[in-house]
């Protein structure tokens, strides 16, 4: 076995580690060990997970880091959580969107009877400052080390590349065709901003709404981020699929409806993949079909997310019910 396969072995190992972390998190949040095992199986035996890791994509590494920082936060090990979060953001940029829900979950609740200024000061709690300081230092320290090792190339490949990246090839994103046909128009800059707005609004509101249940908040965050992003490929799905087993125990959807939504998700993907195959491998002009399939996929994703949000019962509600 050549050294080339070491990377794939690492990602497969991180897959297994992610399953273990999921198990620990599920048990911590109140699931029985047998149901936790079944839910971990959804990640372990998911063909998409297996395919992406063995193909050599590093998504499972990020999944392990994100799950371990969530586990540390749930078990109040804030220092370790901050370290792991800083490392996760350094590896790939998308976990930085979790900063807002984590910050909101670490702030104290605003107390009535106090003034606005006092409430704002209370918001910036000691825990939050400590978390920000530790994760920020880890992030910058790692960046400094790699900048010293690789110089400008490191910054270019890790961060600046994403700012100037012009990949307009077909992908699951609903904006793909719009960005392709308007690529050289002078109002393409304004359009890019328009694409950013729904993502931003939804991320802000969901952070505020679900800050008390961090794994659920992160799941909604990532699902929204991926669905409304300018570029979306199938490995991005793993970013929120690793958090789905944490959401499932508190979902009151019912098996039939849940399976129906899952089937709808697969149908949405299949409707996109068929014209995409004919475009890429047969040379047919199926651009319009891919565009419509992309829009349909966004609608399907939004419907599924909406159903998950409306059928989710957070822990407090469950506790209140038993009172």
């Amino acid at each position: 076995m050549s050294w080339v396969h070491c990377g794939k072995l690492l990602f497969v190992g991180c897959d297994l580690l992610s399953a273990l972390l999921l198990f620990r998190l599920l048990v911590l949040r109140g699931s029985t060990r047998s149901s936790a095992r079944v839910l971990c199986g959804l990640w372990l035996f998911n063909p998409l997970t297996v395919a992406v890791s063995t193909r050599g994509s590093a998504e499972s590494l990020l999944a392990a880091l994100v799950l371990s920082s969530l586990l540390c936060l749930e078990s109040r090990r804030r220092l370790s959580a901050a370290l792991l979060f800083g490392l996760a953001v350094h590896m790939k940029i998308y976990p930085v969107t979790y900063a807002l829900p984590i910050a909101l979950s670490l702030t104290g609740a605003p107390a009535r009877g106090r003034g606005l200024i006092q409430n704002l000061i209370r918001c910036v709690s000691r825990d939050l400052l400590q978390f920000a300081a530790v994760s920020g230092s880890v992030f910058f320290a790692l960046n400094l080390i790699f900048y010293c090792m690789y110089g400008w190339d490191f910054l270019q490949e890790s961060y600046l590349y994403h700012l100037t990246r012009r990949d307009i090839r077909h992908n699951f994103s609903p904006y793909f065709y719009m960005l392709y046909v308007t690529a050289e128009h002078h109002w393409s800059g304004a359009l890019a901003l328009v694409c950013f707005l729904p993502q931003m609004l939804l991320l802000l509101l969901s952070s505020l709404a679900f800050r008390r249940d961090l794994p659920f908040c992160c799941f909604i965050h990532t699902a929204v981020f991926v669905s409304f992003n300018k570029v979306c490929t199938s490995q991005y799905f793993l970013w929120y699929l690793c958090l789905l087993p944490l959401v499932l125990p508190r979902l009151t959807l019912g098996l039939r409806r849940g399976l129906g939504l899952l089937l709808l998700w697969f149908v949405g993907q299949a409707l996109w993949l068929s014209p995409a195959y004919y475009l890429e491998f047969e040379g047919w002009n199926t651009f319009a079909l891919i565009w419509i399939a992309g829009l349909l996929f966004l609608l399907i994703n939004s419907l599924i997310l909406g159903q998950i949000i409306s059928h989710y019962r957070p822990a407090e509600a469950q506790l209140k019910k038993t009172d």
Partner: protein
Amino acid sequence: MARFYLLATVLCFIRRGSSKQADCFPSEWLKSVSVSVKISKAGFHRDLQYRVQWSSTDHDVQALLVQKLPSGVYMDAYQLETLRRDTGLEVLLDSEVDLEAPEYLSSGFTALVFLSGTHEAVVPVHGRYHRPSDSSKPVKVDIEPPRVLLRSDQCETLQTRALGRTLGPGVRGVVVEAPCTVSNHSICSWMQILDLQGDAGVSLELPVGDSSLVLTVCAGTVLTAVLSCVYLLRKIWKHGSF
């Protein structure tokens, strides 16, 4: 004294070597060299099938195909590296090729296909996205035929072949410098055959987007995004705890 003998021996070998060069690539033999290029598969991922033929000769012949490619296609350096490890295909690219850029933001490049010991090579090539057009006609990318360079390890140098000197009626050769092997450690002199008998080059057709639909696409996309966003905002507002 030892140095004198060493120098004499070396000069002796060089003289012997250069007297062999006249037989290395004789004009009659050069007329038997031919190259054919075919393009297979469909869509954006194609294979360029090269086949170089020459009549048998008593010394080894190394061939190098210099393929100039337009900005409408690209080759994946990582894929070529994997193929080199797995199948022994030797292709060297002359510059960094951006895998993602569209055609109007890219430039052409040159691929050097080394055929040492083999007469055939299959090189994967990929199409880039082109500018959208008003009509639904696909865009055509033409790939010119490659230049054929020859070299033999048994011939020391080709410096006795003067530039532009005719090797025989209808077969003109030129000495050019190119990497010796795909590892690009050293430069050797190769014989480029001009006026080669062969195919006229290949072309591929790639579909492009429809720029006449710009307004429809923008309106439809923005509308769908706004609808989905509003739906989700309502759900979050209704079921979130603020």
